[in-house]
């Protein structure tokens, strides 16, 4: 039963991803490895599309992965399942907000969870880097990197510039 499997996979993403939309990527890569619902190549296209469509990237990419796996119903199941843990947890937390914040176990778990989430995302970054980069890509990456350290810019700046450079590079067969 594909919808039940989708529900379980995406519910577990929603429950275990710490650190925002991109933190869901390690889980989506893991699904590509284990479930074979989509390839890692398809996933990187989905991530590219999700970055330039409206909405939080994490939601976009979940919808997309669900759609690729099992059509519109799959998209709906994946999106609802990835959000559901947040909804449940936050409603409970909002009710207990005061006690929650100063509990030493809660503080300690937050203290250990954040670096773990950060490490997972760094691993995805390295993986994507190894799989997607070529010489010209490296040039583009270094350019964007320099742009990012000189000034704080809007994410759309990087996506816009890189899309444009990609388009031009395509004409000269530099993207292969």
């Amino acid at each position: 039963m594909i919808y039940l499997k989708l529900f379980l996979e995406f519910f577990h993403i929603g429950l275990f991803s710490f650190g925002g939309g991109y933190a869901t990527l390690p889980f989506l890569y893991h699904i590509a490895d284990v479930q074979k619902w989509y390839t890692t190549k398809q996933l990187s296209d989905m991530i590219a599309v999700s970055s330039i469509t409206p909405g939080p990237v994490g939601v976009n990419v979940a919808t997309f992965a669900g759609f690729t796996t099992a059509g519109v119903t799959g998209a709906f199941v994946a999106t609802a399942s990835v959000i559901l843990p947040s909804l449940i947890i936050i409603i409970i937390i909002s009710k207990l907000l005061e006690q929650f914040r100063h509990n030493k176990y809660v503080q300690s778990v937050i203290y250990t969870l954040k670096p773990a989430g950060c490490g997972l995302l760094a691993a995805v970054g390295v993986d994507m880097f190894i799989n997607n980069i070529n010489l010209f890509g490296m040039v583009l990456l270094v350019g964007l990197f320099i742009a990012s350290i000189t000034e704080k810019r809007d994410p759309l700046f990087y996506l816009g510039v890189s899309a444009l450079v990609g388009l031009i590079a395509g004409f000269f067969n530099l993207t292969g």
Partner: protein
Amino acid sequence: MEKTLYQIFKTFFKVGTLLLGGGYVILPLLQSELVDKKNWINDDELCEYYALSQSVPGIIAANTAIFVGYKLRRTAGAFAATLGIVMPAFISIIIVARLLEEIIKLKFIQSIFWGVGIGVLILIFLAVKEMWRKSIVDKFTCWIFFITFILSACFKAPPAALIILAIFIGIWLPFQKKIEYGDKEE
């Protein structure tokens, strides 16, 4: 402005539509919509929800919406806000995904995606940098980072297993002697 469920939905739908290229822009967007225009919550509350949203699992933009929705109209408000923030993403992907298989064959689209893929790498780098700044506060957290990184990058350990491991370490720590959360206050 009245805080009806429809108003809550509409507001977050608008925010969801304007959210491009990652959730980082949600804070300024919510500031202008909820604090300045509608006066539903104040700046302090918004910042607190945003900080809390990063401490619970899930997508930060959606988490912030759920916190604010709950504050405005309890559980029903949380659902209305969630629906609002998710809907634009859902609709746009359903439309684009249908076209993707066709347009992905076009060479110039592939080139654009290739470029955007590099742009995403930078966004991931910036996200890691920001998370690092907030989470690696001492040697211990630095160890957690590198162990998670190596187990994930080199050994393909399931992410959920690593998160559960981190949770256990977090619960176990207070049983050890007194710990400091970070070498010093920032």
